[in-house]
């Protein structure tokens, strides 16, 4: 049987998941009754956020010109934090269906994903989706696709993933235009692990594309990268429901269980071969994703006695989640102010939010989170360098020659009229202009180099508000670069709070500090005493504020002897304080630890 392996790539919300569902239905893989919305997204959280977090591979059949084809397709995530997962999925394919919303046109992740596909030598089928909508402008969007990517506008397939219009034509095109899998270069087994998940019942489930040879249930496999061996206990294909199979043969895609206990046992990108008859060289893998954003998680309980057990509960939750998502890192951390917790690294801000939410939801722990920072490379006077993930770890300045920070290349697509404002925004964030190109009469693509630290928090929101929702962005890390960076310390009630310290550009330090102190002043409740707030660089105070002493909080009435009620009221207030942290004699709410994100612009 002929095989076609492909991914669907798109800017978020352009209809990738809906199109995948429609393809499943059109190929009769799924009955109407079973067609839940967005078949390929599995976790609740994904459904809620409308983001596909983990790739899944599904196998269906389609008949074209009297011949039956096996189509394997792989759903990919649609957010900038997860581009590495897109590139992983693409490695397992020969082709990609590039979906563009006919009411939105080409967007930043359309471009980023298409570049990934081109770089991976994939054949691309451009598809214009949502043509059922009144606002659809398929011709104009097809012209944009031609302008940006060079595909002839008339080659775009017009579809509605909602009504099913054009779906058969798309399936035909997949069979016709996508290349056959390349001929094997060896008879020995080589399978690319392009994804891995943790399943409570099965343990680790690896998603594998077979490039050479074949894999059978019971085979003893060797992971070429780690050298470790395992026995295959189960092979599954998804149609879309998991089905056990006896073997995965040449060019097929499916999942492999081999008694691996943790995701640490498998390296995504590794090559599977047979232990008794191993291949000589591994398939080309991919780079591990690098954690670029860091923050601390602490148990939120302020109860002294509870501290130890809350920390253990947090550790358990983190370890458990890590089985499912090996792309975040964690190590224990101790802070004077916040006690024991974990320093965690994430691929991006969204990734961080998702991890925190899953820890709270699935792990049942409640967390105080410190403001995220990027990693910095510190060049020391003795010629060595040091990577830090926490401003608190910055060595004594007398030893520091230079501080380097990660720089990204950012691509923004926006309407013409917003160009000026966006340039202003980028420049205010220390961006360096690269280029500006038309993609159509009304829209442009703007490229800047900009420090990651300047965009990790509210940049995206600012972009959205400046462009009234029409602007989109994508970024890639390009290098670390030196700048005039300083560490600002925040003192609450004269005590330095490391969890609130930050590294920022010297020229912005005063403005940032004032913004932070104002935020803190808002968020820290009045206490029974006045609380001075200060910002300092190397002991020199650069900004100050103060929180006046509380004057009155006594709830005056205690009526009819309803003592329980009064007690419950106070208990509830106390409960509210639980999510807060005690620093000396000052109680600081969780949000305050995010205050340092305020850019002051």
């Amino acid at each position, binding site marked *: 049987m002929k095989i076609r392996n492909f991914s669907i790539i798109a800017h978020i919300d352009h209809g990738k998941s809906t199109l995948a569902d429609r393809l499943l239905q059109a190929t009769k893989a799924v009955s109407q009754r079973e067609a839940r919305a967005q078949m390929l997204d599995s976790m609740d959280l994904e459904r809620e956020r409308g983001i596909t977090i983990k790739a899944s591979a599904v196998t269906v059949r389609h008949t074209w010109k009297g011949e039956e084809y096996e189509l394997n397709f792989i759903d990919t995530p649609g957010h900038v934090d997860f581009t590495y997962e897109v590139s992983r999925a693409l490695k397992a394919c020969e082709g990609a269906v590039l979906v563009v919303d006919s009411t939105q046109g080409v967007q930043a992740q359309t471009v980023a994903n298409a570049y990934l596909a081109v770089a991976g030598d994939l054949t691309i089928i451009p598809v214009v989706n949502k043509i059922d909508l009144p606002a659809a402008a398929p011709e104009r969007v097809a012209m944009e696709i031609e302008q940006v990517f060079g595909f002839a506008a008339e080659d775009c397939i017009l579809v509605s993933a909602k009504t099913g219009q054009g779906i058969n034509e798309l399936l035909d095109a997949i069979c016709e235009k996508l290349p056959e899998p390349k001929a094997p270069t060896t008879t020995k087994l080589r399978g690319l692990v392009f994804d891995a998940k943790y399943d409570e019942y099965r343990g680790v489930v690896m998603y594998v594309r077979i490039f050479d040879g074949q894999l059978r249930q019971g085979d003893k496999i060797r992971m070429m990268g780690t050298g470790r061996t395992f026995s295959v206990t189960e092979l599954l294909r998804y149609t879309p429901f998991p089905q056990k199979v006896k073997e995965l043969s040449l060019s097929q895609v499916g999942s492999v269980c081999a008694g691996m206990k943790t995701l640490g046992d498998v390296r995504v990108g590794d090559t599977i071969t047979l232990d008794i008859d191993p291949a000589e060289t591994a398939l080309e893998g991919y780079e591990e994703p690098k954690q670029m954003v860091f923050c601390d998680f602490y148990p939120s309980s302020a109860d*002294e006695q509870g501290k130890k057990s809350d920390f253990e509960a947090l550790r358990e939750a983190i370890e458990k989640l890590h089985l499912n998502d090996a792309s975040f890192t964690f190590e224990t951390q101790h802070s004077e102010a916040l006690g024991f917790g974990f320093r965690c690294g994430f691929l991006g801000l969204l990734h961080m939010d998702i991890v925190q939410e899953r820890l709270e939801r699935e792990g049942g722990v409640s967390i105080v989170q410190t403001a995220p920072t990027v990693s910095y490379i510190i060049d020391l006077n003795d010629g060595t360098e040091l990577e830090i993930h926490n401003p608190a770890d910055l060595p004594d300045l007398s030893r520091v020659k230079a501080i380097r920070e990660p720089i990204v290349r950012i691509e923004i697509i926006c309407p013409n009229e917003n160009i000026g404002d966006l340039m202003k925004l980028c420049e205010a964030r220390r961006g360096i202009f690269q280029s500006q190109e038309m993609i159509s009469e009304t829209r442009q693509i703007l490229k800047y180099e900009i420090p990651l630290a300047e965009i990790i928090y509210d940049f995206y929101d600012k972009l959205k508000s400046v462009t009234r929702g029409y602007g989109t962005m994508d970024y890639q890390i390009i290098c670390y670069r030196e700048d005039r960076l300083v560490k600002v310390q925040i003192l609450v009630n004269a005590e330095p709070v490391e969890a609130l310290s930050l590294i920022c550009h010297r020229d912005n330090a005063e403005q940032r500090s004032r913004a932070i102190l104002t935020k803190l002043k808002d968020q820290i409740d009045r206490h029974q005493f006045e609380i001075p707030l200060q910002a300092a660089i190397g002991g020199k105070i650069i900004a100050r504020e103060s929180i006046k002493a509380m004057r009155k909080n006594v*709830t005056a009435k205690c009526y*009819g002897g309803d003592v329980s009620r009064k007690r419950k009221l106070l208990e509830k207030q106390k409960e509210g304080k639980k999510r807060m942290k005690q620093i000396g004699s000052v109680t600081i709410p969780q949000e305050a630890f995010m205050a340092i994100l305020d850019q002051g612009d």
Partner: protein
Amino acid sequence: MEPVPLPQAGGAPAARPLSDWLPRLAAARPRGAYAHVPFCFHKCHYCDFYSFVDTKDRQGAFVDRLLEEARAASVLAREPLETLFVGGGTPTLLADHELERMLRGLRAMLPWADGAEWTVEANPETVTEGKAAVLASCGVTRVSMGAQSFQPALLRQLERHHDPASVARAVGLLRAAGIARLNIDLIFAIPTSTMAEWQDDLAQALALAPDHLSCYGLVYEPGTPLRARLEAGGVERLDEELEAGMYEHTAATLAAAGFHHYEISNWAKPGEECRHNLLYWEDGEWIALGPSASGHAAGLRWKNVAVLQEWLEHGPWSPVRSVEALDEDGRIGEAFLMGLRLLDGMREERVRALLDHGARATQRRAAIDAALARGDMEWSSGRLRFSERGVLTSDSVLRELL
């Protein structure tokens, strides 16, 4: 806290008659009784007491049922009771003959100590010569008058309908009938109110020569129309500084007028403290009568169902949905919570005894030490109490003592 498990029905726990707890209540030593009359003329917008606009058709049934409950509860009163407090709602909204039947019935059903303190809450508009006569002839020794404010505009803010002049008239009638002891309830920090208005309220209240004053800072209780208005931005909370100033002004003015500030919100001429309220604050026991009334005895705190019809239909013991048997920490916490509301505070031996027990003793000691260090608490003639400035922020300390 160890709430007594109640069978679950649907979501809300099923109500059970208080008599189910009689084995435990055998150890009860109540010294007072609270009776709740749930009828009002109009529902004030800040009010979250269990009360509703009276349709007059259930007054008779209410009094019958209350007396039935009193008769049943009399088994708990092994010693004569020293205080009765009839609250609401608006007890004086009962028709004269129903009010009389209720008071005489309570006198008859329960054992009373000589010189027992009998307080009835009154709404100024409802006090007539007849009502005053009923109260006096039934042995009521004290009336608590809900004046709240003498400023028509501020009464309107609260959606409270009475003519400020009716307060003086009501006080006159009560005095003429021979009721000697009088409390006036006032509320400060009403939205838009000024210091001058509050000073005037205090002056007008003092002009009526009460022996007791309760001055409450307005609370925006969840579920009330006033709270909804606050959340919708229709009213603004008074500035904290001004509210604190009003409280301090109250303390100064009333001290000068010869009142003893004996509880956070209560002032009395020497010897005129409300004995019934002292029972609450000194961790005493009392029985509860009427819908939504709370009781405390034999280590249990309970609250009668707050649904008139349900209470009417199930007797003689009230159905209860909430009964708590506090564990040691719970009891210690409450003892502090109540005892420290008294400005004289708590006796040193009692404080030490309480701090010697309970799983949270360390935290309690730390909270007290911190408050002492800040000057928010002090030791004074062998008692631990909030200092003058500490009173204002006492909730922050009290919740740490729970």
